[in-house]
């Protein structure tokens, strides 16, 4: 007997994300009957077009099991279970039982699919790790307990890519933005090496919605140097939905949605957990994170209803010092982070209550050499090429000096779910408090400090109805969000006119419904949403004495229509048209002053109208035993796209002239593709190739948009043997050749313009670069429940000097040099 696949989060329903999805745990018992032949022989079979379903001595295995709803313990009738590689599947019978016979030995992906639920993949290996040479008797059964956590489908027709398991482990210790770079189509907007924001298909900040455990993250996300206030260690799975997803997640999800999901809380009394330790040589950065979880289960006696309680405690401590580029160290580039989260749930037959609290606290040093003053400082810095020696010290330190950012974020979430014969009703309430302090260098203790306090309350009612006529499933929901931002004085009584963004309160309401039809190979979904938004701004205009209150009211419809076609288990076609809209944020409306550390004078524009996006996408997915590919094509039209554009002229201040930037809008088009392919070259050796191509065009001015990530091609050659894996990766990033050539503000006389080239940018885009990295990992199974994973990753293996177009420090300094990461993960 051998446990082939482990599972520690056993079979308990858990409601994790705001309302819409219910997690069923279906426990599948899979019996794998093995033959005597060794595994090697099986793999030697040429798979041809995947037609490996040959009967013979080594093809007598079968898989069988029961699919049941763990919450109700009722068998699921008509669930489809199939083997991806063999394109072979069955439906469960009236007792939820299924059996797939005549399977050869090998590695397979088992897919469980149930109408109206997200499909789930599991890899089953008949290799049995180190025991591949042990002859097994014909009667020996191999029992594996596989949890299929079938999630209610939230979006059938748009592309989702996830980071989980080994792929997520490989990013541990990195920031959310850095981790998400693994997903094709996702890049980062960086401020030095410590602050990075995810960019999806060329768009970022307010256009990328982040759902932290089902609650939309509300921080100061408008700032290009404000990284998401999230600890990735909270999540067991990070999913990126690419494209406009306004209907379900909020009208402003123009570029996409990033979802961080923890694992379902346990319900057994067993205490489990995980310890992660990471050390990075560059910056001597350490990250340690721990999870402890357990539960209480009370079985029903005569008059008592069974219930269970699950809990989890999670914490992270991260500390890093000055980082080094290949040729010099950058002063004041350390980071410190302390985060924790607590969650508890209570489950009863038809009822689930969940409370989640997380606290995120970080202090990030901002490279001292980036405190560029005016145009002349800036030109000097660009001319010099490398920072002054004072900013590139020999001596390493963990100390965090000015300028720095101090950020705290609290999230409290309470969710209740009730199931009845009509469907599932849930209420999710959230409170978030985001505190941000940006301390700049100025005279002595009188800092130039910007303080931002943002408090957000959000609530969502969601009702997911049971399938109507076994055909139509869907949900209807209402969300509300109220927030107050304080940067000076009291909300309605600001004291100062010199704040970066004014005090405001924001109230939004949305009503939506999404319905979907699932028939044989077809799935069609459609949804609508209506939103209203009221923004009240309280500010003292520059030079004014009295408070001015500006109110903005916006309302609009959002829609989505999509289809998914699966002619067979190998092919999957998806197409979707979705809209989204976003009203101008306060910084876009009211900025007026120097943005420190950015060397720019930013002016808002009170007359900006909401931007409206229409996103068209088409995805094709192919899977066979030795080849997997996904092509995602998109075309995103954004009317009145709001962006910060250089004017090329200097704006005069007491500190001299600063390059001026104005928030403006234009009609734009973002189109491109993400192509991913995995080829099994020979046994154990695979090649993974990812290409991201993007063209962003300013249609009104007939020229490319500024600040769009360059195209990239990444290749990974990977060798897996038993529990060992070794890989080498090359990332090639082209030079961004699509940059604007002219200043778009025709009213500015050319005599005032000093940055005439690159559409007002200070310097041309950096050259193309090629980076190598290598990685090795080893798994140790200590006991059935305990395991240890260790890995070594060398990023920027050749210590290449390079600069990236989307790093705001590219004018002054190189990117981070070689960085060796040691990771250990102990699960128990």
């Amino acid at each position, binding site marked *: 007997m051998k446990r082939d696949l482990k599972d520690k989060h056993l079979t308990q329903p858990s409601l994790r994300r705001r309302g819409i999805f219910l997690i069923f745990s279906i426990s599948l018992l899979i019996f794998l009957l093995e033959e005597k032949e060794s595994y090697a022989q099986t793999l030697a079979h040429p798979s041809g077009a995947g037609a490996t379903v040959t009967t013979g001595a080594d093809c007598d295995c079968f898989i069988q099991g029961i699919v049941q709803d763990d919450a109700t313990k009722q068998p699921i009738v008509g669930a489809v279970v199939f083997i991806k590689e063999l394109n072979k599947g069955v439906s469960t019978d009236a007792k939820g039982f299924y059996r797939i016979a005549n399977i050869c030995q090998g590695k397979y992906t088992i897919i469980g699919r149930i109408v109206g639920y997200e499909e789930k993949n599991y890899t089953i290996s008949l290799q049995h790790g180190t025991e591949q040479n042990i002859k097994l008797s014909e009667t020996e059964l191999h029992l594996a307990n596989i949890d299929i956590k079938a999630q209610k489908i939230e979006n059938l027709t748009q592309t989702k890519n996830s980071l989980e398991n080994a792929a997520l482990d490989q990013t541990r210790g990195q920031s959310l933005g850095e981790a998400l770079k693994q997903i094709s189509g996702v890049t980062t907007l960086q401020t030095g090496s410590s602050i990075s924001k995810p960019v999806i298909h060329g768009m970022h900040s307010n256009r990328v919605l982040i759902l932290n455990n089902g609650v939309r993250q509300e921080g100061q996300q408008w700032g290009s140097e404000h990284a998401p206030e999230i600890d990735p260690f909270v999540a067991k799975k990070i999913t990126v939905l690419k494209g406009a997803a306004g209907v379900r997640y909020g009208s402003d999800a123009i570029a996409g949605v990033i979802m961080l999901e923890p694992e379902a809380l346990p319900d057994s009394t067993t205490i489990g957990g995980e310890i992660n330790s990471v050390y990075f040589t560059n910056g001597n950065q350490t990250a340690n994170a721990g999870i402890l979880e357990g539960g209480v289960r009370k079985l029903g006696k005569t008059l008592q209803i069974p219930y269970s309680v699950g809990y989890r405690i999670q914490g992270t401590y991260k500390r890093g010092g000055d980082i080094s580029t290949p040729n010099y160290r950058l002063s004041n580039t350390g980071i410190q982070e302390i985060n924790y989260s607590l969650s508890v749930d*209570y489950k009863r037959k038809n009822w689930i209550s969940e409370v989640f609290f997380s606290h995120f606290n970080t202090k990030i040093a901002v490279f001292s050499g980036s405190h560029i003053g005016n145009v002349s400082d800036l030109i000097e810095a660009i001319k010099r090429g490398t920072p002054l020696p004072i900013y590139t*010290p020999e001596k390493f330190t963990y100390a965090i000096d000015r300028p720095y950012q101090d950020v705290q974020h609290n999230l409290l979430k*309470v969710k209740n779910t009730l199931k009845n014969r009509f469907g599932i009703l849930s209420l999710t309430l959230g409170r978030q408090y985001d505190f941000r302090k940006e301390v700049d260098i100025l005279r002595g203790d009188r800092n130039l*400090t910007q303080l931002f306090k943002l408090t957000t309350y959000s609530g969502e009612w969601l009702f997911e109805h049971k399938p109507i006529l076994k055909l139509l499933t869907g949900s209807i929901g209402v969300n509300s969000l109220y927030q107050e931002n304080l940067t000076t*004085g*009291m909300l309605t009584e600001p004291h100062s006119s*010199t704040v970066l963004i004014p005090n405001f309160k924001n109230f939004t309401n949305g009503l939506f419904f999404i319905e979907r039809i699932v028939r044989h190979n077809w799935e069609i979904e459609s949804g609508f949403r209506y939103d209203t938004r009221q923004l009240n701004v309280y500010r003292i205009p520059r030079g004014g004495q009295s408070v001015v209150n500006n109110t903005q009211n916006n309302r609009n419809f959002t829609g989505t229509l999509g289809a998914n076609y699966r002619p067979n288990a190998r092919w999957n076609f998806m197409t979707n048209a979705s809209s989204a809209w976003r009203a101008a944020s306060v910084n876009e409306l009211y900025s007026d002053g120097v943005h420190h550390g950015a060397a720019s004078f930013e002016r808002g524009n009170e007359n900006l109208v909401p931007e409206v996006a229409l996103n068209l996408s088409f995805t094709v997915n192919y899977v066979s035993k030795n080849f997997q590919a996904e092509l995602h094509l998109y075309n995103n039209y954004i009317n009145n796209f709001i962006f910060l554009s250089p004017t090329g002229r200097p704006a005069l201040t007491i*500190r001299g002239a600063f390059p001026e930037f104005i928030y403006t809008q234009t009609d734009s088009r973002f189109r491109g593709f993400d192509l991913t392919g995995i080829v099994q070259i020979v046994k154990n050796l695979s090649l993974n190739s990812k290409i991201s191509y993007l063209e962003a065009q300013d249609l009104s001015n007939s020229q490319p948009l500024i600040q769009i990530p360059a195209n990239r091609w990444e290749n990974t050659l990977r060798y897996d043997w038993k529990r060992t894996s070794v890989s080498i990766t090359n990332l090639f990033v082209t030079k961004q050749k699509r940059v604007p050539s002219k200043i778009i503000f025709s009213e500015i006389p050319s005599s005032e313009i000093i940055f005439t080239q690159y559409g007002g940018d200070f310097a041309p885009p950096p050259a193309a670069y090629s980076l190598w990295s290598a990685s090795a990992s080893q798994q140790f199974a200590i006991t059935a429940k305990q395991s240890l994973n260790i890995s070594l990753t060398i990023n920027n293996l050749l210590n290449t000097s390079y600069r990236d177009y989307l790093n705001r420090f590219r004018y002054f300094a190189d990117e981070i040099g070689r960085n060796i990461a040691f990771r250990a993960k102990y699960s128990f």
Partner: protein
Amino acid sequence: MRTKRNQRQIALFSLLLNATLFTVSCKDEEVAVEEENELITTVKLNFTSGGITQSFNYSDPDGDGGKAPTIDAISLKPNTTYTLTIEVLDESKMPVGNITDEIKKESDEHLFVYTPTPNSLLTYVYGDKDANNFGIGITGSTKTYTAGTGKLKVQLRHQPPINGKASKDGTPTPGSDDINIDFNVTVQ
């Protein structure tokens, strides 16, 4: 039924919990005043010769943005030596904030730089020194030559220590500008 009652209890409990969540922190918050940003609105150049002082101002009372600053044109006599003092003020506050004193207190990380164009217009000599014997430039002397017109760039370089290591070295290179103004100059 017991089941129903239990369910009702849970519902009640959760409602209470939700109510708590929303009543927590309904107090009025305030951002502390002492965090208020520093602002330089005015820079005064005082040229003194023969007991007569002429003052030329840069003034931007509403700070960055809003209304554009006003800059006086400097008018000096040829072949004359002036004592030049500089005052840095925040006139947006009552009483007026004297930032010159703060610069004096931290003279080891500040440097005024006076740059004429063309070079032949005038020369500047520092009249004060910090603890490390580097010039400060709050007081000094300037000498004009033949009649002509040009510009005088006045900079206050802020050169704070980097991780405890002093960065001021007597040259304008390190640090960043706290002040950077071009005055038009006429020598006649």
